[in-house]
């Protein structure tokens, strides 16, 4: 066998391979251009974009954890207008498939960002980050509740013709339930997981290690949790699922594909190894060749599970 077919179809979108980068860990793509051949990736998911520019959280914004990091960057971004004018053109010119991660403080804000991006070429999908505080509803996160999550998706759906990926937070009682709600609301694809709420403190100064006190844990430490979330969601919905969380090697990525993710996003490891995404892509190819599998879709979701009970 000479080569394998790595292309995957996720509902309305087709990717040349299942490896994307995760929002917030790969900037606007250009930052990695010296190191990674961007056009070879399945897609680049850019840092979260809101209607208005946002300064982000006070420093320190990052603290290292065991096999990962906690961040409280706080969604710093230049706003959708500056994004379209200054950031997006580079990726469009290079023909890199772009997924724009969007968020808002209200349902309307989500919808408005989406509508502004609707006519942008090269943007193959919008990824809705619902792990954001709903300012109207007292700061509860949109994604922590089936009904608010659904409402965001419906509103975005109305204002855009682009395929919608809804990105779920793991900090819920049942991620499967939220996934079903956003499927119902019209999401084309679902992605999980976002970072897990976490914290670090300094026992000497007796202060939090993050300016924002609370942050989100990511990196290899969370992989087993993310894999379980993806497994649950794959079982619960009919729309395609993108796996995210602690993926650092091709083997990790293959684990997510095995439980049924149609594609993966490579996140925090980009900080440790900026070439991780492309190395993972190579590793997946080599594994499939070695295993005599000519089509990556033949591997996806082939986990043999008899039954399972309590933990």
């Amino acid at each position, binding site marked *: 066998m000479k080569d394998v077919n790595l292309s995957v179809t996720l509902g309305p979108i087709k990717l040349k391979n299942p490896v994307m980068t995760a929002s*917030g*860990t*790969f*900037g606007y793509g250009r*930052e*990695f251009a*010296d*190191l990674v051949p961007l056009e070879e990736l399945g897609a680049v998911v850019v*840092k979260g974009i809101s209607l208005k*520019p*946002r*300064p*982000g959280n*006070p*420093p*320190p*914004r*990052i*603290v*290292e*954890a*065991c*096999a*990962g*990091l906690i*961040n409280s*960057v706080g969604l*710093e*971004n*230049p*706003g959708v207008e*500056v994004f379209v004018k*200054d950031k997006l053109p580079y990726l469009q010119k290079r023909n890199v498939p772009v997924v724009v991660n969007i968020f808002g403080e209200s349902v309307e804000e989500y919808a408005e960002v989406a509508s502004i991006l609707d006519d942008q070429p090269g943007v193959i999908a919008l990824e809705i980050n619902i792990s954001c505080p709903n300012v109207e509803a007292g700061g509860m996160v949109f994604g922590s509740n089936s009904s608010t999550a659904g409402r965001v998706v419906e509103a975005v759906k109305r204002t855009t013709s682009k395929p919608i990926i809804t990105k779920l937070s793991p900090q819920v009682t049942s991620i499967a339930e939220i996934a079903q709600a956003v499927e119902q609301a019209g999401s084309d694809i679902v992605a999980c997981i976002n970072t897990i709420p976490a914290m670090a403190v300094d026992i000497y100064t007796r202060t939090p290690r993050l300016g924002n006190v609370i942050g989100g844990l990511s*990196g*290899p430490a969370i992989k087993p949790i993310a894999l379980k979330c993806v497994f649950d969601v794959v079982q619960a919905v009919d729309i395609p699922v993108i796996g995210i969380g602690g993926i*650092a090697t091709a083997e990790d990525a293959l684990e997510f594909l095995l439980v049924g993710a149609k594609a993966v996003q490579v996140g*925090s*490891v*980009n*900080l*440790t*190894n*900026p*070439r991780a995404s492309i190395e993972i892509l190579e590793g997946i190819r080599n594994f499939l060749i070695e295993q005599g599998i000519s089509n990556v879709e033949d591997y996806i979701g082939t986990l043999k599970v008899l039954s399972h009970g309590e933990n």
Partner: protein
Amino acid sequence: MKKHQEEAVILDNIPIIGQDTYRLILQAPMIAREARPGQFVMVRVDKSYDPFLRRPFSFFRIDKEEGIIEIGYKVVGRGTTLLSQKKRGQTVDLLGPLGNGFRLPPEDTSDIWVIAGGVGITALIPCLEDLRIKRPKAKRVLFYGVKTASELIPSSFFKSLCHEVLYSTDDGTMGFRGVITECIDYHVQKGEKLPSVIYACGPLIMLKHIARWALAHSIPGQFCLESIMGCGLGACLGCAVPGNIRHGNSEKGYVHVCFEGPVFPVENIRWDEL
């Protein structure tokens, strides 16, 4: 300037001061070719994911012809301890060169003060070298402060690069007794002419004092800052510090040490919030 990820061979890794400050000499031709004083590299101290993040270190020496770079580092925690255990002949994974580097002062600059606290001296040595070559007519004075004389890096590293060195040690074991800011005050009170520009690198507390002084006297300054770094590439926005640059982002701005810095004009940082 292209960024490279380079597996660099360790030519040497030896203490230069006592047991806890090391000099790491690396064969890294791609990075050396592009590097400028004030820039830095991110070092992956271990192949494992614990520690997870790379560690940033300023260039201490850049030899473009030989393709060699050096960093000088102090062992302060887990990552630097692991780094100090690496042996000649092994390799380390580098990412660089990163950041903006020191800018040269105007052609007609007459007096330059270079102010170094502790291991901050290492970033300023290539800066001094650059100034000697490109602003040969300016007088270069180095203020160099440490806790105690045994923490000074040997003067062979910098003596020839400046016209005058003013040492200060907290315990008076070398030069002025007191902290570096007091040493500066002392010389100013003695009637020393104020500089046209200052370059500073060292502990935050020192930088804050000097910044306040420089701003009060309207002396332009370039300050090399530190921050916890995620990517070093401008992608994660983790290295933000309160700044006065308004780059489209917001009212209350942050600047990013890894790509807008690590060297900042003194007026661009909101020092009181640091």
